[in-house]
């Protein structure tokens, strides 16, 4: 019988792939936003606000945030798995990490859609 840990990595390909797919999404967004920011006519808060208030910018920024949180989840979980051996502590840290990241996702949505 294969011994499986509650706090294991699900022993699969999915997270490995997700880590890379989210990385590519974030890399494309980073370059896109750098181009948008560098092509702003003036550098003040109004210009920044106008840029971020655009419907497409909001949409891709939120996608970036979700990709970031998934990416951070896989990366931080790997770190807990590398350095934290007691299963109870590790599970607690996993849950806290997830809760924080889900909370951040709500926070970013609120920041973007009140514009």
């Amino acid at each position, binding site marked *: 019988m294969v011994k499986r840990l509650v706090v294991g990595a699900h022993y699969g390909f999915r997270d490995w792939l997700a880590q*890379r797919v989210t*990385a*590519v999404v974030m*890399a494309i967004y*980073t370059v896109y936003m750098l181009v948008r920011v560098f092509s702003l006519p003036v550098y003040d*808060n109004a210009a*920044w*606000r106008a840029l*971020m208030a655009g419907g497409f910018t909001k949409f891709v920024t939120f996608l970036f945030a979700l990709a970031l949180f998934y990416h*951070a989840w896989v*990366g*931080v979980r790997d*770190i807990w798995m590398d350095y934290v051996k007691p299963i109870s502590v590790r599970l607690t840290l996993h849950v806290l990490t997830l809760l*924080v990241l889900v909370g*951040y996702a709500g*926070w*970013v949505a609120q*920041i*973007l859609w009140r*514009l």
Partner: protein
Amino acid sequence: MAEAIVRKERPKYLNLVQIRLPLPGVVSILHRVSGVGLFLALGGLIWVLGASLGTPDQLECLRVVLAFSLLGLPVVKLVLLGLLWAYLHHFCAGIRFLLLDMHIGIELAPARASAVAVLLVSLSLTVFLGVLTW
């Protein structure tokens, strides 16, 4: 059939002071360190985003926070500069890892060269963008 459980203790050599990492190893551990730094700073960064797009009061609060200095050092700006480096290093090293995943540059010499490139490009971009936005 009797089950013989033989557990060999694996040798560990984790004296951090004595380990001499090759440059690709330096890039790798800095990838992890920068990732941890960015994760720990995530809440603060989202706050900065929110304040920069928030009410005039929040914007003023952000200005005060950015101007904060300790013993003449603009610590908040320096932390942000560190986070800029972390992002750029994570970005460059990540692209290098994606290429390695695709079996591009996995020979010793190109792998070393790309490790040097990651370190240099992320540092120079940090200086460039840091000067531009200071």
